[in-house]
């Protein structure tokens, strides 16, 4: 408990500090101006959500092979936290796109992928709520999670071949890409802070899931008596 509070306090300070960096330390982008500041929320959220969904996939695999309840708890925690971060991405994206592109939404590769990902993991959580038996729920949602994750690159490439408008990657984007050093530091620190937040949230959610399992176990015991 104390550790969680301490972690939350550290994260609060870190996020406040990175917000200061994003607004005051990083320079204003030349063409887009102040609108570009939303990227300090958008991009790290996207990275963090992919990380969370990667953790979910790993937990799903581990559950199928090991059959330990803890992997199921980790899977659902990571999926929910990932979904929260994807929602941030999907909300901040259009806010940026409207003044810059003149439209709220376009069916471009990365946008569509993010949206399909959001739908897939909503389905994952819905499926969980529709299966009563805990062991079955864990196994079948894990299997769905594995299939859903395999779909991600396929969705991405199919839409990329089809039509694309999203700005080319600025970070790790090959020749001509690159960031002003102060921007890079800001991005990196925001991402670190968000990853910390993700870990904290997953941990809290995991403990909740473990407690729920305990309660269910106790209830079943009393029923048997």
């Amino acid at each position: 408990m104390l550790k969680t509070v301490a972690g939350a306090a550290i994260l609060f300070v870190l996020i406040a500090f990175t917000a200061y960096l994003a607004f005051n330390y990083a320079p204003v982008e030349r063409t887009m101006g102040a609108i570009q500041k939303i990227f300090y929320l958008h991009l790290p959220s996207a990275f963090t959500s992919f990380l969370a969904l990667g953790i979910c996939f790993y937990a799903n695999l581990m559950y199928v092979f090991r059959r330990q309840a803890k992997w199921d708890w980790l899977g659902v925690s990571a999926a929910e936290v990932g979904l929260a971060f994807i929602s941030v991405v999907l909300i901040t994206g259009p806010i940026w796109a409207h003044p810059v592109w003149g439209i709220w939404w376009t069916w471009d590769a990365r946008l569509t992928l993010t949206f399909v990902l959001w739908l897939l993991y909503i389905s994952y959580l819905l499926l969980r709520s529709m299966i009563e038996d805990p062991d079955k729920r864990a196994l079948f949602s894990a299997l769905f999670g594995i299939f859903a994750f395999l779909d991600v690159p396929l969705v991405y490439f199919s839409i990329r071949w089809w039509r694309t408008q999203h700005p080319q990657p600025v970070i790790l984007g090959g020749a001509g890409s690159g960031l002003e050093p102060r921007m890079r530091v800001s991005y990196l620190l925001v991402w670190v802070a968000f990853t910390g937040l993700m870990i904290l949230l997953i941990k809290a959610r995991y403990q909740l899931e473990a407690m729920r399992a305990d309660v269910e176990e106790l209830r079943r015991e009393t029923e048997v008596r």
Partner: protein
Amino acid sequence: MALLSNAAALLGKELRTEFRSRELLTTTVVFILVVVVLFSFTFDPTSIESRRFGPGLLWLAFLFAASLMLQPCFLREQNNDTLSALRLSVSDPFGIFLAKLLANTFFLLLTEMLMLPIFAVFYNVHILPVFPQLVLVLFLGSLGVAIPGTAFSAISAQARMRELMLPLLLLPLLTPVLIASTEATAALLDPNPALRADWLGFLAGFNVVFLTALWLFGEYLLEE
């Protein structure tokens, strides 16, 4: 080899069960027909407009129909308590999936073949000159629907609200199949028909990915 002979025997069983009642096939054909007719009210189905919207609506109708058609695939076994018998009789559980997904592909392809002439007449598109190529697209697309569809039919059979769960699980996952099949079909219905090898290759790749996943994880999908 045992896998293939098991799968062939099971495929025969699936086909026999269906052709005795033909319940699934008739309802699916009528469903697609209804969708195709209803779609014609949403835009002016002239030749030019149909070429723009036709392939997409055709594949959407197939996808929705498939998500209904795949429903009883495992539910039937569950209701009759035959799944454990199946598992005991087959050495490799992948054989069960192979048989079921081939049967589903066959049923889908059959309904698509029945619907294609009606679609061509209603929407004023010429399919005869490109018919063999079209069949190839339909086959790869249907396989792409049937592979994850059969797997998810085993998942949704375990859930409440299963009639709604299967489309919900399956349709977002099929985004790549929808795009690739629609694009390939549209290229064939163009005034200058072209066989888009890139999209066909993509569909084949999709099928390989999910067939491999099914081969790896199929046995867990059959646990009760």
